[in-house]
């Protein structure tokens, strides 16, 4: 099932493949990207289950430890990622509408939000450790640091993808494959946002 290049792509003068402009059912990005995204979501589902399992074994400990964590750090991170996702959505729509500078600016803003996320995370971690709550303190903090750490790793990968998207969105015309990568990369970023939304609830909100 190799990707054949449809005649509408690479039209001289710069344009976007026509079927992207019609509201037909299409796979955002490409099928392969969803193998990766759904697969990664499945792995995180396992991690969510691990969290709930160990929380279930020591509910009092988890509740007490959660009170030591500042919800503000988590909430700010959620707001930052949600905003970055809006930027990315806007960027993809800008690429479709041939608004290249706007697309790059939007991705730039998304990257700023991502850096903000990581800064906030570092602040939060150093604050926790300074107050004697490190990954070795107890099970709550162990899973807290491991889960947020694995998520932060995904944020880093996502930032790399966003940088690639910023470069691509500056091009006057994109091939079918390149546009698929833009959509697929955007979906990866939304996945990173989605995972954090769940983590925020599991780590900071539930009791």
């Amino acid at each position, binding site marked *: 099932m190799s990707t054949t290049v449809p005649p509408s792509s690479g039209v001289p003068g710069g344009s976007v493949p026509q079927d992207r402009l019609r*509201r*037909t*059912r*299409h*796979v*955002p990005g490409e099928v392969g990207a*969803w193998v990766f995204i*759904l697969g990664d*979501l*499945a792995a995180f*589902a396992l991690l*969510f*289950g691990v969290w*709930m*399992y160990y*929380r*279930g*074994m020591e*509910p*009092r400990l*988890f*509740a007490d430890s959660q*009170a030591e964590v500042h*919800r*503000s750090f988590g*909430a700010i991170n*959620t*707001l930052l990622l*949600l*905003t970055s*996702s*809006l930027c*990315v*959505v*806007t960027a993809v*729509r*800008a690429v479709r*509408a041939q*608004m290249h*500078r*706007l697309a790059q*600016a939007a991705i730039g803003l998304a990257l700023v939000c991502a850096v903000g996320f990581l800064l906030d995370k570092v602040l939060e971690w150093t604050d926790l450790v300074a107050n004697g709550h490190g990954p070795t303190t107890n099970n709550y903090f162990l899973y807290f640091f491991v889960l947020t750490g694995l998520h932060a790793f995904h944020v880093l990968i996502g930032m790399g993808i966003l940088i690639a998207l910023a470069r691509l969105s500056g091009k006057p015309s994109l091939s079918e494959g390149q546009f698929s990568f833009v*959509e697929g990369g*955007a*979906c990866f970023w*939304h*996945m990173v*946002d*989605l995972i954090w*939304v*769940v983590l*925020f*609830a*599991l780590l900071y*909100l*539930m*009791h």
Partner: protein
Amino acid sequence: MTGQLVALLRNRISLIWLVLIAATLISWWIGTGDAANPQLGTAAVFVVVFIKVRLIGLYFMELRDAPLPLRLLFEGYCLVVCTTLLAMYLTSGVG
């Protein structure tokens, strides 16, 4: 460019984003919530998260316009994860 930006933002997506922001702000403000019935509060948190996740998937990831099998896979994922985590919560000890 500002005109272009405004044109792009006047879209349902921005409304979805506002809803997501509002939901986050509310959960931030509510704090530890109703101490009298933590299970109800947490169940509500789960439901809200489920809605947020679906909104991100359907609108940001554009799965609303995706072929049905892909959309069903995503919806199925949300449903299975939400119910499993909720069940694990309800069958665990009280926090």
